[in-house]
Structures are given as structure tokens and as C-alpha cells.
């Protein structure tokens, strides 16, 4: 009889099981399963997002490093070109300065030479004129003195003639 009772479902117990199970289902659904599963899903999503954003950050970093390298190498190239240009400008300036200086110097020298020449010519002309004057005066004096009498005139002519004869 006892065993029979064991497998005969009691109505009251079935009723309470239904009530308790449905109560449990309704309360747990609202206050436990939804928030817990939502928290899990949210966490999964945030982890996924964090991972992807980390991946993105890594990519960005790589991009940035690449950009930096590029910029650096560009800067290096620019620096080199600037230095080169500066050197060229310097060389050019120096060369120009040199040529200008030598030109100037030559000009100065040539003008100095010209002046010297002119001065010399002037001096020579003056000297010539002076010498000519002096020579005329002397010749005058000499002639005056030589030709003061006939005898001396004669002697002179003879001497000149003699000179010419030779």
C-alpha cells in the first residue's frame, strides 16, 4: 500500500508545485535572469569593444610611428637640402665677392696706372717744356756769348761744318 502511495501523485502537492514554480519563474525572470544575462551580455560587448578599440589603437600607433618616421626622414632630407643650398649660396657669395673684389682691385689698379701714366706724361711734358725753355735760354746765352764777335762766329761755323763733314 505504501509503495502505491509513492507513485500516486497528490493533487494538493501538484497544485502547490504549479504555484511555486510559476511564482519562481515570474520573479526570477524579472529580477534575476534578465539583469544577470544583461550584465553578462553587456560585459561581453564591452570586452569585445575594448579589444577592438585596443586593436584600433595599436593600428593607429603603428600608423603614427610610420608617419613619424616618414616625417623624420622628410625632415632629414629637407635639412640636407637646406644645408646644401646654404653651402652653395655661401660658395657662390664668396666666389662673387672674390670676383668683384678682384675686378674692383683691377679697376683701381688700372685707374691708378692710368693716372700714374697721365701724371708721368704730364710730368714729362712739363719737364720737356722746362728742358726746352732751359735749352732755349741756354742756347740764347750760348749764342749770345758765342756770337759776340766775328771770330767766335767763324770758329763755331767751322766746328759745325767739321761735324757735318765727318
Amino acid at each position, binding site marked *: 500500500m505504501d509503495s502505491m502511495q*509513492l507513485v500516486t501523485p497528490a493533487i494538493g502537492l501538484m497544485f*502547490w*508545485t504549479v504555484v*511555486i514554480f510559476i511564482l519562481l*519563474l515570474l520573479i*526570477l525572470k524579472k*529580477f534575476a535572469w534578465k539583469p*544577470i544575462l544583461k550584465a553578462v551580455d*553587456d560585459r561581453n560587448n564591452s570586452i569585445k569593444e575594448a579589444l577592438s578599440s585596443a586593436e584600433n589603437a595599436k593600428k593607429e600607433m603603428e600608423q603614427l610611428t610610420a608617419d613619424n618616421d616618414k616625417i623624420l626622414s622628410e625632415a632629414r632630407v629637407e635639412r640636407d637640402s637646406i644645408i646644401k643650398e646654404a653651402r652653395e649660396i655661401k660658395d657662390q657669395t664668396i666666389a662673387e665677392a672674390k670676383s668683384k673684389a678682384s675686378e674692383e682691385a683691377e679697376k683701381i689698379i688700372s685707374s691708378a696706372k692710368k693716372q700714374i701714366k697721365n701724371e708721368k706724361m704730364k710730368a714729362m711734358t712739363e719737364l720737356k717744356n722746362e728742358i726746352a725753355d732751359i735749352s732755349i735760354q741756354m742756347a740764347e746765352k750760348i749764342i749770345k756769348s758765342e756770337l759776340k764777335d766775328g771770330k767766335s762766329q767763324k770758329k763755331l761755323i767751322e766746328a759745325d761744318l767739321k761735324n757735318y763733314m765727318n
Partner: protein
Amino acid sequence: MFTFSLQKSLFTFAFFALMTTTSYASKSIEEKTETYNPVPSIMHHISDSHEWHFWGEGENSFTIALPIILYTNTLHVFMSSEFHHNEDGHHVVENKGNKFVNFHGKIYLLNNGELTAQFDEHHHVTNATIPLDVSITKNVASMLIGLILLLLLFVVSGLKAKKNNGAPSGLLSFLEPLVLFVRDDIVKPNIGKNYNKFLPYLLTLFFFILINNLLGLLPGSANVTGNIAITLVLSFITLIVTNLSGNKSYWGHIFNPPGVPLALMPIMIPIEIVGIFTKPFALMIRLFANISAGHIIILSLISLIFMAQSGLGDVAAWSLSPVAVVFVLFMDLIEVLVAFLQAYIFTLLTSLFIGLATVEHH
């Protein structure tokens, strides 16, 4: 019709159960005529009761009285203590003009004018009827404790989950893997993409069975999931949920099984219709039998000590007790495993049935 066939199948099962227990009992009676018979005690332990008995006998026992709720023409509510632990039908309780007796754990309503219960030679009450009994029995009380425990555990976890969106901590960190285990390893693989609709039900089912299995292992506790009424309700819910969610191809397989010749249809269709009920029926029996069997084995092992005492004397009882204790300990550990396993299997098979009923073909 359904209840009749169900009862018939239950009786078949009961016959089997009866055979095994009586043969066990009769064997022990044959060998040692004065040996302590553990069967009534074991049956008492695994059956539902109107009071929660812990230890002791009669008036000296430690028992928690539970409310008895009966419906005749009016509602009768009184405490089980009014019967004074009398279960042989001799103590009559009068409430609102009706007289009640407790006979072998069942409350009988005495017919009008009767003052005491009368019995025939088969120990049946002859002058009373069984009223609608919705008492808070030991199993109901145990289920309520389970309900409160589950609500405490999960509502607290739910509040915690709502507040904090970082890593789980404390109670939640223990319960969350279990919830995720049910979702990701039981429900998702078996139901497929529509699993979200059934998830609250299946989670509740898993934890309801689990907590009641585990509570049943405590000394002095009730045998909730080893009670046929409770497993019947759970499997009946499975039956309803499965068939209400069944799609066209599910019903097509039942009423027009593909690839079956027309001549076989009259055989196949009834088989398929029976199949609708055998699946949850197997669920009901599996949980009931597993948990009850576990309780019976543990109680039998403990009874060995008393059987040895009554048959072989105190020395034998004392020397057998360490062995029995080790065996009981071993069985208790297995029962913890079974508690998880049966909750898992019930939920898994329910998910599988729902999955089969909702799967989209091609």
C-alpha cells in the same frame, strides 16, 4: 481519458516498485523472523507528510507542525499538531462542524453523523471520504524553503548585476558560471537561435530541480524531487511548452510522418501521438526514480545497523556501523553528483524536446 491512462501506467510502475520492495522485505523476514523491517521507516522517510518530523516517537518526537488546508464545502485550515501525531485514524479533529482523521498520512473526512473512523479487514476506511487536500505538507514547505533560497540567491545576484558592470564578485561570481553553463551548454546548442524565448523557463527549471535535489540531501529534509507529483508537474510543463511551441514540421512529422507508406499510417500516427507523451513521461519517472532510489539506498544502508542490532546483537551493530557510515558517506557524495546530474539531464532533455519541436527544416 488521459488521467486514466496515466494512472494505469503509474500503477504498472508501482507494481514494479512494489515487487522489488516486498521481495526485499519478505527475504529479510524469512531469514530472521525477528529482524527489524526497514521498509515502513524508509517509506515514511521518502513519502510526503502533513507534519515535518525530525526525530523521536509520538508525543516525545521533535516535529514541526504544518498547516492543513482542506476544502469540503468550506475551507478548513488548522495545524497538523491537532492530530497529536496520530496516523492510525483514531484521533478525530473537528473543524467547522466536520470531523477529520489522519490515516497513514491521508486526511479523511468522516461521513455525516459518524463519530469515529471504521475500518474493514483490508485497512480501508469505510465511513469517510477524501476531501480536496491542499495542505502545506512537508514537501510544500521544503519547496517554499527552496523558493525563498532561490529568490534570495538570485534576486541579490540580479541586483548586484544591475548595479555593477565590471567583473562579477561574491555570490554573483559563483552563480553566474552556472547560469552561463545552462545557457551556453544546455539551452543554446539544443534549441538553436530562438533559445532566448525559453531561457527563463529552462533556467528556473534547472535551479528549481537543483536546489530541491540538494535540499533533499540534508538530514531530516523532504524528498521533494523524488515525489511523483512534483516530477509530474515539471514534466507536464515540459509537455505543454514543447507542444505549444511545436511548428509546422513538428506536427507534420506526427500526423504525416515523411517516408512512411500510406498503409502504415494507421499504425505510425498513433505511435507518434503516444511519443508526444512518452518523452515527458520518461522525464517524470527518471527524476522521481533517481532521487527516490538515492534516498532509499542511503536509508537502507543506515537501516543495516538496526537490522544487525535486532538480528545479531549490539556488537555486530557497532562493528557494522563504521562500514555503513563509510557507505552512506560515499552514497551522499554520489547523491550530490546525482543532484547536479538530474537537474542537468531534465533541463537538457527539455531543451532537446523544444529544439526538436521548433527546428526549421530546410
